[in-house]
C-alpha cells in the first residue's frame, strides 16, 4: 500500500527506478504520469488542484485495494499532487508491478480511470483571460463502465 498525496513535486525518474527495483519476481512494471498541459490558444498561467484531505487518501487506498482484488499485483504506487503547478509539471503518477504485462497494464488503467472520477481532486486553470474549474468529462465517467 503506497499512496502519497503531497503538494511538493515528485521525482518521476527516481520514483520509477525505486519502484522497479523493489519488485521481486515481477516481470512487468507499468507507469502512468499525468502532466499539466498548456491550453490551446490561451496560455496557462498555472493550474491549482484542490483536494479533500482525509477522503483523498481513503479513496486512493480503496481504489488500490479494488485493483488488488481484480489482478495479481506486486507493489502499487500512487502519487498525486495538490496546490499550484505550472504547465509541463507532473501532476501525478501511478505504478503497478505484476508477473505478467496484461495485469500490470489493466491495473494501471483501472487505477487511472477510478482516480479520475472517484478521488476528490478538482482542477482549476488560471489564464490571462480568467480562472475556470475544469469540467469532468463524460468520457471519464464512461470509462468506468469498462470495469
Amino acid at each position: 500500500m503506497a499512496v502519497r498525496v503531497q503538494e511538493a513535486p515528485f521525482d518521476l525518474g527516481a520514483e520509477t527506478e525505486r519502484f522497479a527495483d523493489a519488485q521481486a519476481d515481477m516481470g512487468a512494471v507499468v507507469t502512468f504520469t499525468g502532466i499539466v498541459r498548456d491550453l490551446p490558444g490561451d496560455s496557462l498561467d498555472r493550474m491549482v488542484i484542490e483536494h479533500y484531505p482525509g477522503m483523498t487518501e481513503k479513496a486512493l487506498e480503496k481504489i488500490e485495494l479494488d485493483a488488488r482484488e481484480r489482478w495479481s499485483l506486486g507493489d502499487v504506487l500512487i502519487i498525486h499532487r495538490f496546490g499550484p503547478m505550472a504547465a509541463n509539471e507532473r501532476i501525478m503518477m501511478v505504478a503497478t508491478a505484476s508477473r505478467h504485462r496484461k495485469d500490470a497494464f489493466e491495473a494501471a488503467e483501472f487505477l487511472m480511470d477510478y482516480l479520475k472520477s472517484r478521488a476528490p481532486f478538482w482542477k482549476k486553470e488560471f489564464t490571462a483571460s480568467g480562472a475556470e474549474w475544469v469540467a469532468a468529462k463524460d468520457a471519464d465517467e464512461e470509462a468506468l463502465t469498462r470495469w
Partner: protein
Amino acid sequence: MDVLYFAWVRERIGIPREKVETQAATVADLVEELRAREPRYAAAFADLSALRVALDQELTEFDAPLAGVREVAFFPPMTGG
C-alpha cells in the same frame, strides 16, 4: 454536523466548511434547508446533477440518510489524474 464545500461549491457559498444544526433525515433534506437560507446557497445547490456528496468521506447519493453522520461534503464531479 460539519458541512464541507469544495471547488466552485466552496466559492459560491464563500466558506470551506461550517457547523450545521439540522434534523434533516437525508442529504436531499439537508440540501433543501441550505437552499432556503440565502441566495448563495440556492445558487450553489441549483442543479444537484452537477454535484456530488460524501458522508464521512465516502461518496454516496442524495437520498442517503444522515443519521449518525458527522461530516457531509458537497462538491462538483471530481477531476483528478
